[in-house]
């Protein structure tokens, strides 16, 4: 221990090259000046020993929490725990810092079961292990329980593309509902600096000015959903989170979600890796840019309202989840995907759709049996019908 400079990064990807300042002295920790350095931190390029890095990381998170005024004493905070590295580190850190600095919080673990066989079971197992070790209460909400549809079933109906749409929209609501059930005042998610940077890039590429205005997640406590959210790790580099977990010996589950090989975010992710290789501070620079964007005042942006059906936050008459569910329940899974306003209006007015229109909306072809119940799928992902693409655990994507 302590000999290798940079641990293998589980998230994969290119290692960042050595920072521009060539070290003129042997690698001693630049913080304490005494111990030999065990790593070079990606964010600043300094060589640090294990203890100093852990201390620095914890202190930075603490300062971000305090400076951003993320919590108030006495609050109940539900930590979105997926079993992946970000949420594991987040849960660990929040518990540690709460004890150390006396935030006065009641912490809970909130997990979402999307119903992806072989993938979610393993990550939920990791969450349960964490729960046992930490002693925090855990609550699991599942898509099947909330919506009547698991991701496996959705993917069977929908095909290889656009699964992230459903998963992301459903997860957002699931977290809110779970938090309300548990009586939480806030939801804390493990979004990291890389996530924020990718979101800024993505929103620019897709012309999503509405989300750019919301600061691409840069605001400390967002009031977009039913329950306020915060992202205490949003300034932490993904690689540093992995480093922290590694040196702290935290156990988490890491693999790619099989249903998302073609998510658009993958492009932004690949770009971010290259940018980081060209300039390591690019991740933080993008975060800074995202915070400082300002829009023309004369733009018309979607206003926040409520869904007519379920009362959730929505900018349209029906929230996205209701639209998606409507499509799924009617056997027209693409109803919520793509520009089908005219067809949706038709349905709303009770007019029948032609065969062609039903086909475009993804209705199953003649002769296919309709799914009545959840079949037990094969665990494991040796079969990769839609190709493997390196992606992290999908987050509650902003749509």
């Amino acid at each position: 221990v302590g000999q290798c400079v940079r641990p293998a990064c589980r998230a994969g990807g290119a290692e960042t090259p050595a920072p521009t300042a060539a070290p003129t002295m042997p690698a001693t920790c630049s913080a304490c000046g005494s111990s030999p350095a065990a790593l070079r931190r990606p964010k600043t390029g300094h060589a640090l020993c294990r203890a100093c890095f852990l201390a620095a990381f914890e202190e930075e998170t603490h300062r971000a929490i305090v400076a951003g005024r993320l919590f108030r004493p006495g609050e109940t905070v539900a930590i979105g725990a997926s079993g992946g590295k970000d949420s594991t580190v987040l849960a660990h850190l929040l518990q540690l810092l709460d004890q150390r600095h006396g935030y006065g919080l009641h912490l809970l673990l909130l997990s979402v079961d999307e119903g992806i066989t072989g993938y979610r079971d393993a990550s939920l197992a990791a969450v349960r292990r964490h729960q046992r070790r930490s002693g925090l209460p855990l609550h699991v909400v599942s898509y099947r329980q909330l919506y009547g549809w698991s991701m496996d079933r959705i993917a069977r109906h929908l095909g290889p593309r656009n699964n992230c749409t459903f998963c992301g929209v459903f997860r957002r609501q699931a977290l809110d509902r779970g938090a309300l059930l548990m009586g939480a005042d806030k939801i804390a998610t493990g979004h990291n600096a890389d996530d924020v940077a990718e979101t800024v890039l993505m929103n620019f590429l897709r012309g999503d000015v509405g989300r750019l205005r919301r600061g691409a997640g840069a605001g400390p406590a967002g009031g977009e959903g039913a329950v306020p959210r915060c992202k205490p790790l949003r300034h932490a580099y993904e690689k540093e989170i992995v480093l922290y977990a590694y040196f702290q010996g935290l156990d988490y589950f890491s693999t790619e979600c099989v249903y998302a090989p073609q998510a658009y975010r993958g492009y932004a992710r690949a770009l971010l890796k290259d940018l980081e290789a060209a300039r390591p501070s690019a991740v933080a620079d993008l975060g800074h840019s995202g915070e400082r964007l300002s829009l023309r005042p004369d733009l018309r942006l979607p206003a926040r309202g409520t869904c007519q059906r379920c009362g959730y936050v929505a900018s349209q008459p029906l929230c996205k989840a209701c639209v998606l569910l409507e499509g799924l329940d009617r056997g027209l899974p693409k109803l919520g995907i793509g520009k089908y306003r005219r067809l949706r209006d038709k349905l709303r007015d009770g007019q029948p759709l032609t065969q062609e229109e039903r086909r475009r909306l993804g209705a199953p072809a003649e002769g296919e049996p309709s799914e009545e119940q959840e079949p037990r799928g094969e665990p494991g992902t040796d079969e990769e019908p839609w190709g493997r693409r390196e992606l992290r655990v999908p987050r509650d994507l902003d749509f």
Partner: protein
Amino acid sequence: MCQAQEEYGGCDQPQRRPRVSCAQKCMKCKEASPVLVIRVGDAFCKACFREYFVHKFRAMLGKNRAIYPGEKVLLALSGGPASSSMLRQVQEGLSREIAKKLRFIPGIIYVDEGAVCGQSLAEREETLLQMETILQASGFPYHLAHLEEVFDLPSSILQRAPHSPAGPENSYKEAVEGFICQQRREEGGSPSLPERRIQEKLAELSMREAPGTEGLAAPGARLLGAVRTEQLVQLFGSVKTLTAKEELLQTLRNHLILHTARAQGYSKVMMGDSCTRLAVKLLTNLSLGRGASLAVDTGFSDDRHGDVVVVRPMREYSAKEIAFYNHLFGVPTVFTPALDTKALEKASIHRVIERFLFGLQAEFPSTVSTVYRTGEKLSTAPGDADPATGAAEPQHCLLCLCALDTNVEDGSALQAILVSEQLSQQRLPAASPAGRGCCPGAEEQRGCCMNTTAPGADARADFLPLLCYGCRLTIKDTTCLESLPLYVRSEAERRKCRAAMKLEIQEFLLEDEAVNPGES
């Protein structure tokens, strides 16, 4: 696919692009057979394309009403396709006989950057000869500048000149009408006003004007030129990353063009940035931390200098359209190698973004235009007021003259970076040569100090607060601040002294807020 207005996801099948068959007719005149396809499926014949292209240029100028008749406009020519096309549009526009011709007085500037791009003197001469052919053929007064002249710039370049405000909307119309009347009066024998002015200028200028030394002609000048070239090479040699080099080059080039404009009385500068180039620039600047100034960096008009306004009339043309136009209508261009010619793929942020965007564009053909349109929706961020004095006037960056975006807000990314830097080097390494007593182990460090082992660290620590976030990154990659041109250093010194002055007399100054309560 990528429009956010669309429901997310796009189609199931790969988007079937409309096929253009040979039997199709030009979509505009419906008569002639098309010679090219622009955008996704629009086929044009040669004449209609020309009209479309020319019209776009004039509409861009007319819509923005930025250029008043009789104004002197400096065209920044790089020899590349976009600026060459722009020059051709200006030529065409001015030469029209009808009443609707363009009415400003153009000049051209070409900046020779060969020293920085590693070209030998012979190669540079060769390029200059080619450029001169084009410049002389245009008939406009032109200025050949060498980037070396940057070392002789006055520090007033870095100060915002008072902006002569454009009058209200009506005055544009009035100005145009007045101009037409004046022209009509002068008609009858003598050439029209702008042409006459150009002829006068030609006689006066003797076709070769440079604010500093020519550098390549007289032996004495040649010697000075060699010294400057050496300095320039040294400056860029001290910049460690290609990204920072590119940024520095752009900054210096802009300063030089601005100086020429000011010295020669031009009130506008036209840059040939195309839509494609601006989309790349948007994403690049995002990645460089310049989110606050995207609007001025890529908008139609850029008035950061105050008196000279930079306009970008080519911003709605895609690179493809420009290339086709140049090919079809014989617009001459000159290839000059740039800093990143033949560089590795991931050598600089600019390269990475360019490669990424073009790659994505191949798969999603609306990417470039979507990014461009997103950029159009941005506006200039209100500069952060100086927190120390509470003055209403925002500070401006020393190098790029954009409003500073570096006030440390609670919970911001910038604050997190500073904290990380601070925590990662609580004690200075023992072998620090300067033996700086900067309180090893103390809490309070300079807000933005770097690893302070270099002897020039003090100067750097004073320099950085004068810069915006993006320029800070560029300077952080520059090892030797002494090699920066004198005007930069002296202006930095001046600002520093002034700030110290202000701090000293802070308590006696009657601030704006006393006069205008509530204004921050």
